[in-house]
């Protein structure tokens, strides 16, 4: 298990390097000249050229990339074009808000998704099953920013105790977490249902019943442990979708998190901020998938690395 963890950890290194390359390329291939923006709109050609020199934009591509990676590894992601403050401290101030939002939303979607999926599978083709699956279809199809707006319209505005914006108090958490967690809950419910239905017809479930195991334990002990394996993968992938959704959710609920920060930075063409934020979010995603791989191994003893 220890060796497995170390090896999986080492495997994330090339992925992270790939991420830095993509992020770096992205910022250099999209239109807009950072030097022009930093120098100001009224700067003349000479001033812009000077700024370009200062930013190192005239250096060869590989030199710029190497500098970016080396600096990033030391925690230096450059300075914001607009505020001039270090990108790392700007991101640091907002990072945990987004992590918190993503964490609670994931928790909510796992909790609701698992229960709904198990109930649906064990009561297959019943009224409850149909109801849950229709509900899941809605949850899946609904754009989360629209769900957020509807929640504000029909829950936050009519009832005083649910705030429409901000982050920190439990009341402030509720609506954004529902907004962001619904799609995940729907996917996990559907995944759990189909996975459970497959497992329930396996021979070893019949063995458990032939042993005289109570039906409740057949489901929650013998079947669920096996059914969870594909569900865990979905939870990991879902986390990436969640980070994307966080951008919209934070904007709708005016939460001062990393997502909204990126949107603003894009609008302002604040390249270092966008670059830094995307890098941090991508690494968070890589980290979560690393955790998923580890828990996968705990659930499924058959997995051996190579």
């Amino acid at each position: 298990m220890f060796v497995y963890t170390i090896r999986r950890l080492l495997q994330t290194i090339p992925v992270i390097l790939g991420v830095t390359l993509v992020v770096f390329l992205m910022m250099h291939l999209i239109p807009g000249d950072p030097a022009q923006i930093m120098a100001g709109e009224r700067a003349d050609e000479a001033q812009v050229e000077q700024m370009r020199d200062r930013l190192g934009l005239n250096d060869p591509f590989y030199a710029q990339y190497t500098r970016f990676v080396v600096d990033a590894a030391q925690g230096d992601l450059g300075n914001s074009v607009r505020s001039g403050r270090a990108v790392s401290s700007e991101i640091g101030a907002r990072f945990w808000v987004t992590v918190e939002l993503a964490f609670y939303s994931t928790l909510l979607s796992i909790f609701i998704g698992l229960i709904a999926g198990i109930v649906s599978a064990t009561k297959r083709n019943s009224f409850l099953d149909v109801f849950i699956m229709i509900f899941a279809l809605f949850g899946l199809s609904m754009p989360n920013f629209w769900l957020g707006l509807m929640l504000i319209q029909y829950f936050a505005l009519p009832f005083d105790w649910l705030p429409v914006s901000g982050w920190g108090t439990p009341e402030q958490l509720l609506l954004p977490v529902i907004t962001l967690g619904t799609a995940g809950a729907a996917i996990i419910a559907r995944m759990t249902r189909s996975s459970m239905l497959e497992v329930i017809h396996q021979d070893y479930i019949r063995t458990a019943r032939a042993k005289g195991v109570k039906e409740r334990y057949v489901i929650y002990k013998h079947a669920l442990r096996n059914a969870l394996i594909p569900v865990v993968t979905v939870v990991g992938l879902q986390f990436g979708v969640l980070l994307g959704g966080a951008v919209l959710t934070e904007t709708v609920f005016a939460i001062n998190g990393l997502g909204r920060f990126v949107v603003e930075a894009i609008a302002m063409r604040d390249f270092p901020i966008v670059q830094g934020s995307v890098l941090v979010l991508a690494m968070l995603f890589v980290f979560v998938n690393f955790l998923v791989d580890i828990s996968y191994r705990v659930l499924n003893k058959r997995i051996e690395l190579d």
Partner: protein
Amino acid sequence: MENPKTMIKVDELQTSFYTSKGEIKAVDGVSFDVPTGKTLGIVGESGSGKSITSLSIMRLLEDPGKIKGGKITFSGEDLLAKSESAMRSIRGNRISMIFQEPMTSLNPVFTIGDQIAESYMIHEGLSKKQALKKALGMLELVGIPSPKDRLKAYPHQLSGGMRQRAMIAIALACRPELLIADEPTTALDVTIQAQILRLINNLQDELGMSMMLITHDLGVVAETCDYVAVMYAGKIVEYADVNTLFHSPKHPYTVGLLKSLPRHDIDQEELEVIKGMVPRPDDLPDGCRFAPRCPFATKLCEEKLPTLDTMADKNQVRCWIYTDQWDGPEVNVKNDYGTAQSK
């Protein structure tokens, strides 16, 4: 009252599957009994209803399967009248089952030890520690080498034969009165088959169990069983003690099965086969169900289903040939089968 020496008595059991295409009679009026300490073999091709019969006894049929009629008496108790929780305390405790597929019959995410120990925890109310200790004893009993390590092993770490031994350990953990073994050796290598059969036989003697052995392999029956019921398309076609069945088989299907076994005492160019296929359970013939494949079949066979009649040597046969109503030429099924089939 039931004869106290009968472990289990199945009487006119009918099990059907209710599908959108209508009722499918998987088991259609099957009766047999297993005397205490003896072994009954149930023989038949796939789809003959033998596995469904055993699942019916365990009351483990999955939807849309239902027991439609009949009676199952287990050591004097009516199994079909029992509540689900009463059945649970019998399953894995007084009646156990071994399944065909050792590769998939063990839960991949629990250790062998946990899976054996579970029986003790359910039926004897032992703590996990005590249960694991007894599980270790079971692994020794079924002859698994270095049982202490195997206790902590997961199913994928064991070979097919070892897994089947582990399955046997699970089934026998609570010393059942009746063991139902559903094709316990079919999925195993031939050399391992013999070991597993010997193991089951020895344990049966040691524990004084009664046994139902479900198989399509007459060789296995000859080695292990006291009585044999031959099933075809949901019905018993011949029911006899093992010597009678092998020395004077009566039903053309039984004879066909015996002829299709490879023999080492005579030179054979080719094995004989029973021509045709088992009828689909949703499309059974009106008359004798074997008639379409039977080399002796007459008009009577195709029109009317024969009853299971007791013969002079006490075996029971479901065949028109042995009745007064037989409308074909005089035949000796055992001797004439080959010539009749080649016609």
